[in-house]
């Protein structure tokens, strides 16, 4: 057991799950939300010559995915340090 107590282990896992769920919410909204479900409505707006919904489906979602992973890397490193379960 790397944690000092059962409570800390639970708290770490809870924080981890909550971070992952938040990031996956963004992941879902940008791709399935903007790129698919709301695409027709968003297409009425123009963004640098692109219809906005089309841009999210072919460019914006991919850029967001990259950012999401790096946010996750940074936040998880902070979480590991906080609960002292980072690798030596």
């Amino acid at each position, binding site marked *: 057991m790397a944690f000092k107590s059962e409570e800390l282990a639970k708290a770490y896992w809870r924080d981890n799950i909550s971070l992952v769920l938040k990031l*996956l919410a963004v992941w879902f909204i940008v791709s399935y939300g903007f790129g698919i479900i709301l695409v027709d409505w968003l297409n009425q707006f123009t963004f640098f010559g*692109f219809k906005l919904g089309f841009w999210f489906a*072919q460019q914006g979602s991919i850029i967001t995915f990259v950012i999401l992973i790096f946010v996750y890397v940074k936040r998880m490193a902070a979480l590991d340090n906080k609960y002292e379960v980072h690798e030596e």
Partner: protein
Amino acid sequence: MDIQTLTFIIVGATFALYIAIAIWSRAGSTSDFYVASGGVHPVMNGMATAADWMSAASFISMAGIIAFAGYDGSVYLMGWTGGYVLLALCLAPYLRKFGKFTVPDFIGDRYYSQTARTIAVICAILISFTYIAGQMRGVGVVFSRFLEVDIATGVFIGAVIVFFYTVLGGMKGITYTQVAQYCVLAFAYLVPAIFISFQMTGHFLPQTGFGATIAEGVAGEGTYLLDRLDGLSAELGLAAYTEGMRSKIDVFAITCALMVGTAGLPHVIVRFFTVPKVSDARLSAGWALVFISVVYLTAPSIAGFAKVNLINTVNGPDLQGVEYEAAPEWIKNWEKTGLIGWEDKNEDGKMFYSGDDRNEMTVDRDIMVLANPEIADLPAWVVALVAAGGVAAALSTSAGLLLVISTSVSHDLLKRTLTPNITDKQELMWARVAAAVAIALSTWFGINPPGFVAQVVAFAFGLAAASFFPAIILGIFHKRMNSTGAIAGMLVGIVFTLAYIIYFKFVNPAGNIPENWLFGISPEGIGTVGMVLNFVVSYAVHKMTGDAPQDTQDLVESIRYPRGAGGATH
């Protein structure tokens, strides 16, 4: 120098480079891909993963499909990148902490069951085989064009080269070879895109050129490129480029199957088992996606430019058709492969491409990326470079997949399960037999393809989504999940998905229309339904059969934090 000679030189030079790196890095250190403490930097590992990941489907086929499907092609763009988010957040760090080499190893140990392990091995073979069947077509397209032979001969030549590449072996395993392959592939993809973007819109960046206005001197000057495409599509009776034709639910299902499948593909997951630390597993996934995005953010631009150029070349700037006698060289070259066809229906001697009955052209989607530099009249060395990129993409992935198939059969299935008494020599022989059988079968599929390269590859993702993804996710996030539940779920998921694909692609291909599909979901997207079934069945069976034993639950607890991750063990 003509294109064919240049192609031989450039493809030959890149091969020499890969072999040189393989020899050099072997002499320098023995730490190849499978050594977990090898200390490959996450940036390098990310680049190698990107090369491993991007196959003929990404390089040769994807932009061509987008060029013809427009918005509908977005499923590939979002699907094949969004999966990395799932991989980084939900799988990679935990599987790394678990410390095994392959997906069947994880499934077998987590579900404390030899049966679960065997089913996982069979799923891995099925998935890899479907994937490689798509690759062989891609290799064939490249070789048929540059040797100026028909497509069947091209596939056959490609298959022979892939076989020797794999049997001589060793190359796949070395990270730095893959780094070189990534560089060749990305360079070959970007150079023509930048050239064409500048030519057509005056923008150096294809990503912004794609949304810009058409430059002076090009047909349709002053209008936005995408508006021009929509306008042309309407005039020619095609679906609007930025809107597409597939139903929303189908686009949703295909995107989901591709994303989830990415996170369940055995040869991708393996890369994250073997980085030195858990934190590196997270970071490697991020860098892999950065390098993949370089190609994926360029693909839709290439698609848009290629489509406009194709219409301009075939129909002429005035959309009246172009005299076949005056057709550019590339049309005649591709005709030799049988992948472009012209039938003068109205006997006016002119070519015409459209979406209605005026159409006189058949254009295979898989040639668009390779033909693109020729269509845009770029220098011959760029055309040759793209061929080298296509070969690198197809060969690196095929070789890796063949290794998965042959080791799964000889080691996981025969040695560890069915016939534990075979000698090492027999094991090696079976590995070669498995590779040869896989190549022979996929050559057949390459000559008689059930779809375009990227579509066939999409089936592999559907199968991965329906089998592995739920078993792995439940294995990590639901510690009480037991072996009976996981086995039942995997079986139902893969059998359902495979049956649906086989039915619509081979048993009743004429019935493969939206009206007959379950919930309006095409065979490309059915893996999503298979995945949901897998989750539901696993959960229900688990409820009826009780929790996993305590030591398994403790094991799951221990993979949930990074501290104490050791090297991977077999």
